[in-house]
Every structure is written in C-alpha cells, then in structure tokens.
C-alpha cells in the first residue's frame, strides 16, 4: 500500500501486513488491529463481530486485520502468543491489547477503555 492510499473513514476492517501496519498506525488516531490466522477457530468467530463494529463505529474507530501467520514480524514485535488478539493503537502508539474472543458489547467496552 503506497502512502496516502488509506481510506479515510472505512466501514469495514482494512487489510494490513508487516509493511503497512506502521503507516496505518500513524494515519489513524484510533486503530484496532485484529490479529488472526486461518487455522484459529475463535478468530473466525471474532471476524463478523469486528466487521459489525467497523460498520457501526465508522468515523470513530478504525478497524483493521492482519494475518499473523503470513506476517511474523508483527507477531514477534508485539509479543503475540495467542490469537485472536486485538492490538489497540492510539495517537500512533500501542495503547494495549485484548486477548481472546468475546461478545460484541463486551469487546466494545474493552476497546473504549483505551480511548481515554
């Protein structure tokens, strides 16, 4: 993804990789990155929840997803040992992470604690 090609207010989770993550973190003031992989059952459960939240909170929270199986650098850089794992970035820095699948309302609650 070249510079300046990020959608302004996506209503869906944007796809990131090892090379585009940093740029996305700098581009969006509040970014939630769903670290997932094909082989992870609970991740597949979380997928539709992330899509739903991206739609409902368009313009407020930007959601992204990154396949950590294909993007090892991101996994090791953030010490990811378990997925699904949501990395929360605020103003260009990591604000926290959320491990494990949970219902939509609980997840939103957890995400909002990082908004400050």
């Amino acid at each position, binding site marked *: 993804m070249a510079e300046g090609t990020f959608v302004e207010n996506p209503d869906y989770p944007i796809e990131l990789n090892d090379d585009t993550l940093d740029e996305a973190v700098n581009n969006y003031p509040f970014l939630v990155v769903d670290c997932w*992989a094909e*082989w*992870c*059952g*609970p*991740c*597949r*459960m979380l997928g539709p*929840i992330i899509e739903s939240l991206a739609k409902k909170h368009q313009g407020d929270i930007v959601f992204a997803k990154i396949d950590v*199986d294909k993007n090892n650098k991101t*996994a090791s850089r953030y*010490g*990811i*040992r*378990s*997925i699904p*794992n949501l990395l929360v970035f605020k103003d260009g820095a990591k604000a926290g992470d959320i*491990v*494990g*699948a*949970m*219902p*939509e*309302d609980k997840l939103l609650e957890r995400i909002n604690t990082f908004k400050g």
Partner: protein
Amino acid sequence: MYDIIIVGSGPGGLTAGIYASRSRMKTLMLSSQVNPSLITTTEIVENYPGFPGGISGYELIERFTQQAGMFGLEIVEDDVVSLERASRDSLDIWRVKTGNGSFDALSVILATGTGYAHLNVPGESEYTGKGVSYCATCDGPFYRDVPVAVVGGGNTAVQEALFLTRFASRVTIIHRRDRLRATRILQERAVAHEKIDFAWNSAVEEILGENLVNAVRISDIGDPSKKKTLEVDGVFVFTGYIPNTAFVTNVVSCDEGGYVMVDTQMKTSAPGIFACGDCTRKLLRQVITACGDGATAAFAAEQYVQDLKGSAYSAWAVS
C-alpha cells in the same frame, strides 16, 4: 415463541438442531460468543465415523451447521444469562434471557459443553495469552523452535502435545501421575516421539516470566520439597474441564462437578428442559456420544412439546 430453544452450538446442540428442524419444530439455537465448542479448537478428529482420514474439528462443525441450516435451523449468536419459568397463552414456558434480549420456548435443550479447567497457580492468569494457553491449535504456531510444556495426561493433553511438536523444539508433558491416561494409540505416539519428554509425578507450582512466560516451576507430587524449573516459552494447560452450566444450576439438578443430571431420555429435573453432550453427567465425552444424546434430546423435546400442545402424536408424523 419457539417450540425448542437449543443452548449451545457444538456437536450435541447441532445434532439436536438437525433433528428438531427436520421434525418441523420451530427451533432456535443460541450460539455462545464466549464459549465456542471445544471441538472447533481440535486439530483433528479421528474417531468420528465416516471420516477415515480424520477431519478437523472446525470443519466438522461447519458441516453440522450447514446440514442443520438445510432444514431451516435458526441460529442467533448470543450468550444465555438465565432460564426462568413463565406463563404465556396459559402454557408453562421457559424464558431464556440473554445479554441482548429474551426468547420464549416451550422446551429447552441445554448443549452448553465444557470449558478448560485452570491450574489456579500464580502466574497463570497474569500470563494468559502471554505464554499460557488453553488452545494449541490457536496458539501453537507462535511457538516455532522454542520449548513448551503441556500440563495434563489425558486425551486432550497428549493430542495437543503431539500437535505442538510441529512447531516447538521440545514438548514436555507435565503430569501428576507416572503414566498417561490418554487412549493407547495416543500414548504410543507420544512416547515414541523424539520431541516429547515427560515430567512424571509432577505438579505445576508457578508460571514464571517477564512480560512473557519464560519458565514453569514444578514440584514432585510425593515430595513437594523437590522442585525443578523448566525453561519454556509456553505452558499449554489441558488438565480437565468445567461444564458451562453456571446459569442453570439453580434450575436443573447438577452433580457436584456441575454436570447436568439427565435420564436416558435426556430429561433433566425440570419439566421441558433437556440436556445433551459434554455438559451432562456421563461416562464418555466425545463427538459421537454428544450427537447421540442430541438426537435423543430433540426427540424427547418434540414429544414434550406435542403433549403440551395437546395434539395427538400420531404415527404418520414420525416418518
């Protein structure tokens, strides 16, 4: 109002769903977002008939779901909070309350399954997701070329240990006894595997780390003063199960472990509530037994609903 509400979407629940929908019962399945069926995290199921090459647990559930969908099963993702007796149209019904609303039904099938038991040792909750795991298929690939420990000696522990050998440099099975409980074929594979070693007669005392797990301290069961520290990057815990029944223990009779007591027709102590699969008190908790229970529970629930509605259960309706 539904004829039958099925709580849980594992093999037991989905089989009940197939049978109930196919019987044209108005059926709703409430699928938990918090406690996914454990079979979905099982890498390979080798003992379910019809799949001689084995099948992944996730794919098996997808097939069950697809099959239930063909008969019109309605599935809503929502977690049940409570079950209450209520009255509607002068019928005794069950009100199933969830995080987002409530649903009425003439009968309920509990198919809530189990979750993994925790060790309850220092470091466990602190490092959950940071080296402590309850799902090898979810987290195994993050442990490439590093040593890990597996705690437990039953089927799940040994199967997951075997799975982890694909990634980890070494897998140490920590077990409280001096031999495995797992089924013989799994034992043979584990003992023969060059990457697997064993810490027999050992209990986990503490999980140690610095941001991420870097070791586990174990002690000898016979002489707890004998301690050892294993340097591992991951600790996978498979020591047992806890039934997902906390929300119904005040409604139906459960045994001391929280498993729902059922009779041979999958009836619980409460009228109109049936249960099937791993959440019930039973000898063998497997996909195949859950499916059998599920079919029976659906049939029994259907009979109950028909009786309640006062309609004759005529022979032609069976075929």
